[in-house]
């Protein structure tokens, strides 16, 4: 198959990097969101028990 020119290559590398970074940011933000929400549930359950 034919080789890509420099611009096409740079474009493909940039898309791959942005996708990879986006996926990683999403993963770690999701982890943080999950932990925050679970903490909220725990404290709400404690408040409920105290009542």
């Amino acid at each position, binding site marked *: *198959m*034919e*080789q*890509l020119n420099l611009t*096409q*290559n740079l*474009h*493909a*590398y940039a*898309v*791959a*990097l942005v*996708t*990879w970074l986006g*996926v*990683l940011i*999403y*993963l*770690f933000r*999701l*982890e943080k*969101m*999950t932990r925050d*929400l*679970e903490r*909220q*549930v725990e404290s*709400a*359950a404690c*408040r*409920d028990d105290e*009542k």
Partner: protein
Amino acid sequence: MIFNIVVGIWITLGLTLGFAMPPAENLVATPLAFLHVPMAFAMEMALFGAAIYGGLWLKRRRPADDAMSVALAETGLIFGLIATITGSLWAKLNWGAYWNWDPQQAGIVATLLSYAALFAVRSAIEDEDKSRDLWAVYGIIAFIAAVFWTFIFRRLMGSLHPEKTTVSSSGIFKIALWFNIFGYTLLIVRVAQLRARIERASLKLKEISWNSSI
């Protein structure tokens, strides 16, 4: 957190392998190959998992199974969208146009639309148990349809997508590809687990606020 770090390192190594651009048979060599194909595979795995957990909900009636089914379908849909976008960029390099109405391209659009409809149906039904039942049944049917659209339809119609790239390309291409497929499958499992935990925590929070209001 450790799982996240392992997944992060795995897909970073996969990206590095992809950046070396090992040649694929009958296709232009590009790092996009190592995002598009693994994400499409991971999508299929997630949709399969969604159907399995839907079946488990029907059998065991555990909300956790339903939450996992929804999370897997949702994550599969996101990955499917990314696979479609990166695939159309690669299609431009291979075949000169972003969209060729190739049976494989039409098939992935049909799959994504059927899952979007599934989410619409779920959100339109107020009775929780009924909505979960419908989701589970429709999820199993949608997965069977997805297999048809993404694996069988292209073979029936003939496709621009080469038939045996994943098995007949060079050894280094196959290693890089399967390394990435495994990495993105791990990623989709992790994301779905987190989404299911969020769903379960939200339900619990709703339950607590309901109990304290009465």
